[in-house]
């Protein structure tokens, strides 16, 4: 089972939900696919046993061989390689690594070189739990490759939780793709609702099953519940806001280690999503 946890925007308790669900399960792997701002590791304090660089390739032109014929530029759909007056320009951040320009170059002037765009970290948490997270190098535009890598190395896991990037970007799509179920972390505020709607649309487009966990359910108004009912969306659980929760989170600790109330909620979500055997 692959379960993605996502949200319309940051700060709706998506990471809190992910790490507390993770801690409530016995055998599970979590990936933090929010590679631009990973923060699950701050709560899990696992033991890093392996790190890996994630590279992308981009073309380099040997100007002694290049005749400025222009073929590479005509081929590239992304305008990442542009033959100019005396040299060929390469915009490596636009390059999608398709290999086409090298194929069409008549003089073999193009070769590819690697560039590190980020890292992934493997951690063990307790005896039989794994946690992986990625980090995109500052200045790189797309974390999709790192997310795909994270998902590829965990594709055989029995229970996989995916803390997905907020919003509806390409990175979000890459993170949720192929999930058996998605959990939206939402807040009962007007802004929270409009951001959540976009996520709902995305999940429907992708034909994925999903349900909603409402955080801070004792604050805000009823609009979100009306919306869920009108749309026939499953409300998995409510989590009330409590002063002490904010403090626990600020200390980088897990709610389930401190609160019976949250433990019960996590178990209820697990039962609904994964079934009795996992709770």
């Amino acid at each position, binding site marked *: 089972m692959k379960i993605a946890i996502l949200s319309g925007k940051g700060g709706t308790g998506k990471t809190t939900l992910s790490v507390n669900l993770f801690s409530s399960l016995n055998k599970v792997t979590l990936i933090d696919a929010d590679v631009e701002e990973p923060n699950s590791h701050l709560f899990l304090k696992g033991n890093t046993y392996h790190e890996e660089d994630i590279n992308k390739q981009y073309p380099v032109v040997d100007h002694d061989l290049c005749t400025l014929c222009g073929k590479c*530029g005509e081929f590239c759909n992304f*305008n990442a390689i*542009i033959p100019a007056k005396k040299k060929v320009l390469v915009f490596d951040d636009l390059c999608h690594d398709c290999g086409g320009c090298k194929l069409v170059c008549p003089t073999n002037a193009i070769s590819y070189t690697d560039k590190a765009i980020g890292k992934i970290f493997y951690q063990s948490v307790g005896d039989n739990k794994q946690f992986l997270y990625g980090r995109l190098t500052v200045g790189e535009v797309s974390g999709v490759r790192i997310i795909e890598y994270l998902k590829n190395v965990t594709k055989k896991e029995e229970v996989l939780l995916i803390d997905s990037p907020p919003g509806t970007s390409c990175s979000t799509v890459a993170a949720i793709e192929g999930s058996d179920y998605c959990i939206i972390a939402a807040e009962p505020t007007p802004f929270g609702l409009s951001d959540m709607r976009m996520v709902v649309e995305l999940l429907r487009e992708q034909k994925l099953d999903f349900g909603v966990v409402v955080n801070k359910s004792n604050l805000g108004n009823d609009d979100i519940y009306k919306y869920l009912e009108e749309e026939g969306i499953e409300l998995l659980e409510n989590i009330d806001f409590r002063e002490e929760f904010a403090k626990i989170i600020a200390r980088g600790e897990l709610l389930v280690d401190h609160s019976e109330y949250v433990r019960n909620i996590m178990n209820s979500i697990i039962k609904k999503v994964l079934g009795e055997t996992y709770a």
Partner: protein
Amino acid sequence: MKIGICASDHTPESLVANRFARAPYFAVYNSETLDFAFFNNTAKDEGSGAGGKAVKVLGDLKVDIVLVPELGPKAIDALNAFEIKSYQYKQGKTVREALYEYFEKKLPEMLDASVKGKH
């Protein structure tokens, strides 16, 4: 010498465009023949890298100088590689007026990107 101008339509009396890579047309003024010619900006609908592509369009038109509203970092790099100089006009002028201002040396040369790249 050929001077390119980002234009919102295809006459010398059209307003200058308010964006570079997404300008609808490029006007090209030939200072030897004193003629204007207008070209569709085929880069304007590109999903990715429109700035570099727009410069390529101008390079293929053999433009030496281009008058622009703004430029991103990629467009600056590409203009350098095509050895095209760029000068910045102010909004609200016509293509012809922008050109006069260039000849009167009223337009500042652009050496750095004025806008950040978008992805």
